[in-house]
């Protein structure tokens, strides 16, 4: 479901799911929270480039992560496109999440 690698101070998490929906959201949330539990101060980059669909439950996972990291942590999104970008826009949460077209720009 997820694959992680470190890049300097940042932890890059690639999500290997095409659909971030009610089927996967509960498990995805647990896995992402486990990562944060290891180090809440880290910079986290979520790579959503494989995701082709996201509903509000998937968005809820992203928001829960953002809240969990709070002001001490740092969350960026990479590879948000198509219908996934649409969901962020429709809920106006594109104003809240820092988004970058690719990993290089997120790490810069």
């Amino acid at each position, binding site marked *: 479901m997820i694959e992680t690698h470190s890049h300097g101070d940042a932890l890059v998490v690639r999500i290997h799911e095409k*659909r971030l929906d009610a089927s996967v959201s509960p498990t995805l949330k647990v896995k992402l929270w486990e990562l944060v539990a290891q180090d809440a101060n880290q910079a986290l980059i979520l790579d959503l480039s494989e995701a082709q669909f996201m*509903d509000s439950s998937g968005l809820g996972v992203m928001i829960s992560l953002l809240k969990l990291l709070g002001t001490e942590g740092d969350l960026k999104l990479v590879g948000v496109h198509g219908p996934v970008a*649409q969901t962020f826009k*429709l809920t106006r949460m594109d104003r*809240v999440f820092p988004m970058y077209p690719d990993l290089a720009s997120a790490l810069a």
Partner: protein
Amino acid sequence: MSNKNITLTIDSRLDNSRLVGLAVRGLCQLLPLDTEQAGQTELAVVEAVNQTITRAYASEPGNELSLDFSVAEDHLEIQIYDTGTTLDPGELETPDTAPPRLDDPDSWTGSNSWLAILRQTMDQVDYYSVGGLNTLVLRKYLVST
């Protein structure tokens, strides 16, 4: 021209909303919708089905949820039926919340994000309950390309 119609039926498990979403995405290939509109229709249906399962059936499996997908000459009408707990009609009247602010986590999402999505992706959203049958109606006008 009479309407074309298909009914989709699933068990009230949240992971079944994916099946409905994919099937509706496939059905949208028959309609004059561009890729973005088809994606929005799929999202609206998934949100509506998720909301119905959680509200009507408290996410408990073993109940039936049906969706009618009806194509008329100038519009698509989707009706989602359940026989569970009725939606408070006032909930559909809830005004849109203010845009979320980065410095205010409480503003990031409300429990009505499903409704905001439906309002922005569909041309009409209605709900009624008659004799224990609840119906959520989504309508999208079609423009021939």
